[in-house]
C-alpha cells in the first residue's frame, strides 16, 4: 500500500537472472515464416484458454433467465422440429432407427460443429478491441471457442444419453455398437474440422469482409449436403460418390453407427477424412499465421 515510501528506502535491486533461459528473446521482424506457428507459446497460454472457456460458459448463463437450461432446451426443440418436418411431413428414412433419436444424434453433433465453426470464423472481428490492445497467441481464442462448445456438447450429449435411457426403459431397442469407442475420435475430428475451416474463413475475412455474411448461410447449406437429417443410404447409388466426397459424411455416419447401430462407414473412409482434416488444419495454420500479424491494421 505505502508504495512510494517503502520503495524509496529500498536500494534498487538488479534482476538476477532476468534473462532466464526459459524465455527465448522476443524477435519482431517484418516478415515471418509461414511455418512459424509458435505452438509452444500457445501451450504457455493454456491458463488463458481455460479462463476463456470458463468465461464463455459463465457469462452466457449470467445474462439469461433460463441460464444453462438453454443448452437443454435448444437441442430438444430443434430435434422436435426435425422429427415433425423431416420425419413426419417429408417422411425421410431413418434407416429404421427411432426417428427422434436419429435426429437428435445428428442435431447434437451438427450443433457442435456448426457453432464452433461459426464462432471461430468470427475470431478477428469479434475480438478486435482486445487484439488491438494486447498481444497473446491469437490462436488462444479459436482454440478456446472450440473447447467452450465442447462443454455445451457435453451437456447436450448427456441429454441425448438420458433420452436414449428413457427409450431403453420404455422397451425400445437401442443398438449401441463397438463404434462407441471411436466417439472421442469422431468428436476430435469435428473439433479439428471446425477449427481448421474456422481459422481459414477468419483469415480470409481479414481481406474479404463479405465472407462473414456468407458463413452463417454457408454452414446452413452445408448441413443439407451432409447426412445429418438423412442417412447416406437414402442417396441413390449413382450419387453415392458425391456424398462420399464430403469428408464430414463418415463422421456423422459414425456417430449414428456408434449410438443407434445404423449407418455405413468404414475405417478407411474415416482415415481419409482424418487425413483431410489434417490438411485443412495445416492450411488454416498457414493462412492464420500470415494474416494474424497485421490484421489489426485493417479493422
Amino acid at each position, binding site marked *: *500500500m505505502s*508504495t*512510494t515510501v*517503502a*520503495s524509496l528506502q*529500498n536500494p*534498487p*535491486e*538488479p*534482476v538476477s537472472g*532476468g*534473462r*532466464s533461459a526459459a*524465455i527465448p*528473446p*522476443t*524477435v*519482431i*521482424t*517484418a516478415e*515471418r515464416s509461414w511455418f512459424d506457428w509458435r505452438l509452444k507459446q500457445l501451450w504457455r*497460454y493454456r*491458463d*488463458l484458454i*481455460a*479462463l*476463456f472457456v470458463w*468465461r464463455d460458459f*459463465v*457469462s452466457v448463463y*449470467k*445474462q439469461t433467465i433460463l441460464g444453462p437450461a438453454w443448452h437443454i432446451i435448444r437441442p430438444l426443440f430443434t430435434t422436435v422440429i426435425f422429427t415433425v418436418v423431416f420425419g413426419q411431413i417429408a417422411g425421410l428414412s431413418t434407416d429404421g432407427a427411432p426417428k427422434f433419436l436419429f435426429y437428435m444424434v445428428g442435431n447434437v453433433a451438427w450443433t457442435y460443429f456448426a457453432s464452433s465453426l461459426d464462432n471461430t470464423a468470427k475470431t478477428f472481428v469479434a475480438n478486435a*478491441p*482486445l*487484439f*488491438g*490492445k*494486447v*498481444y*497473446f497467441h491469437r490462436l488462444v481464442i479459436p482454440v478456446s471457442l472450440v473447447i467452450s462448445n465442447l462443454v455445451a456438447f457435453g451437456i447436450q450429449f448427456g441429454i441425448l444419453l438420458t433420452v436414449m435411457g428413457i427409450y431403453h426403459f420404455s422397451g425400445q431397442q437401442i443398438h449401441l455398437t463397438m463404434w462407441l469407442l471411436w466417439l472421442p475420435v469422431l468428436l476430435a475430428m469435428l473439433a479439428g474440422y471446425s477449427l481448421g475451416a474456422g481459422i481459414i474463413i477468419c483469415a480470409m475475412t*481479414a*481481406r*474479404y*469482409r*463479405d*465472407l462473414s455474411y456468407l458463413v452463417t448461410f454457408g454452414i446452413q447449406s452445408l448441413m443439407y449436403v451432409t447426412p445429418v437429417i438423412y442417412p447416406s443410404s437414402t442417396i441413390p447409388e449413382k450419387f453415392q460418390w458425391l456424398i462420399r466426397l464430403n469428408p464430414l459424411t463418415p463422421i456423422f455416419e459414425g456417430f449414428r453407427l456408434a449410438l443407434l447401430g445404423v449407418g455405413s462407414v468404414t475405417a478407411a473412409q474415416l482415415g481419409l477424412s482424418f487425413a483431410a482434416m489434417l490438411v485443412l488444419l495445416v492450411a488454416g495454420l498457414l493462412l492464420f499465421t500470415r494474416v494474424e*500479424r*497485421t490484421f*489489426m*491494421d*485493417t479493422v
Partner: protein
Amino acid sequence: MASIISVGHLSKTYRLGAIGGGTLQEDFARWWARIRRKPDPSSGIGHDHRTRQTGNVFRALEDVSFEVDEGEVLGVVGRNGAGKSTLLKILSQVTAPTSGRVVMHGRVASLLEVGTGFHPELTGRENVFLNGAILGMTKAEIRSKFDEIVAFSECAAFIDTPVKRYSSGMSVRLAFAVAAHLEPEILIVDEVLAVGDAQFQHKCLGRMSEVSRGGRTVLFVSHNMGAVRRLCKRSVLLDGGRVRSIGPSDDAIAEYLGGATASSALWRRTEPAPASSDICLEEVSLRNSAGELTSAFASTEPVFVTIAAKARVRTRPMQITFRLTNAEGIVVFTSANTDEGHALVALDEGTRQFRVEIPALFLSAGSYHVEVAAHVPRETLFDFVDSIHFSVEDTWAAVRHDLLGVVTPQLTWTAFSGSANVSRHLHPTHGISVGSDAHNR
C-alpha cells in the same frame, strides 16, 4: 551487453485508402479485367493498375532505432501522430512492422489500456483472473498476488459483485491493480495513467517508480511531462515518425515544447465568408508571450488567444465568445468580450482584433480544445471555429504536479500569526461561520 530492448531501423507504412482491399466482388472484377487485359476497374481514372501498390502511403514510423538498457525507464514523447502509438503497437506485437527488427530479452507485458478484456457480467474476482491471464500471468501467479491486487484496488468490499455494477472509477482501479502486479522483465506502458481520479493516478505513478526501482525495464509513453520527467532519466522524442532526439528527459521535453508549432495553433479563413453573415471570424491563433504561434505551452507561461473578426456592416448587439474544454470534455470556462460590460455590444464595420490572456499557473497540465463563436446568444450564430487545440505541460516545481482539480490556479495565501479565528479577519462581523469544526475533529 546490457541492452534489453534493441529497436533497429523500424518502419511502418499504412496504405491509405487501400486498407482491407475492399470486397470479394471488387477483387474478382479486378482479376477478370486482368484476364481480359482491360484496365483495373477499381483504380482511378488516369492511374494504371499498379497505383494500389505505390499510391497513397502513410509512413507512421520511419527508420526508428534505439536501445534500452536493462533496468532503465525510457520515456517516449512526441505530439499526436508522431508515431508513439504505432511504436507501442509494434513493440506489444499487436501489429507487425513493415521493415526493421526488434529484439527483446525476457518476458514482455504491455499496457496499452487498462482493463482490457474486462467482462461486465463477471465479478471483480473473476475479472482479476481473466484480465491477469490476458496480460500474460498464469493462474498460479494471480492467485499468489490476489490479496495484494485487491488491497491495491481498494475494491475489497465489492470483489464478488459483477463489474457492471462498479463505478467507472472502481473498475479502473481494479484494472490498474491487476496491471500493476505484473512482473515482467519488460513493461511497456501507454498513457494508462490518464485514467481514474487524480489521487489514484498519484498512487499509480508511485507504483510505476517502484516497479522501475525493482530493476525492471520500462518503456513509458505519455503526454504527462511531469510524469515522464519524474520516472524517466532518458527519453526518445518522436516527430513525424522519426526519432528526433534521444537523451536526458529534460532535454527531450524542452525540445518537444519548443518544437511544437502545430497547425492546430492557427486557423485562418481559407474560403470566402458567406455573404449572409453580418460578421465572420477571419483568424484565430494561439501565441506565447513572445508572440510566437505554438500549441504547446508550459504551465508557467500565459496562453494568448488572438481572434480577428470582420464585420460587413455594423452588427446588431452581439458577442465574441471563446470556450475552453479539457481532454475529459469538461468545459473549463467560457469567456466573452462582453464579460466586463454586462451587455452585448454592436461592432462597427471592418476588421477587429481581440487578444485574451489565460494567465500562467492557471491551467492544469493536459490538452485543451478551443471553440470560438461570434454570436447573439440563443439567437444567431454568425460564425464558429473549433479546430484549435493546445496542450499544457507541467513544468512547475515538484510539489505542484500532484495537485487535483480542473484548473490549478496559483492563489494568494496570506499567513496570520497566533491562534486567532481566521474567519474574523475575513469577516469582521462574524457573520459567516465556515463550519469546518466537524472536519477538523
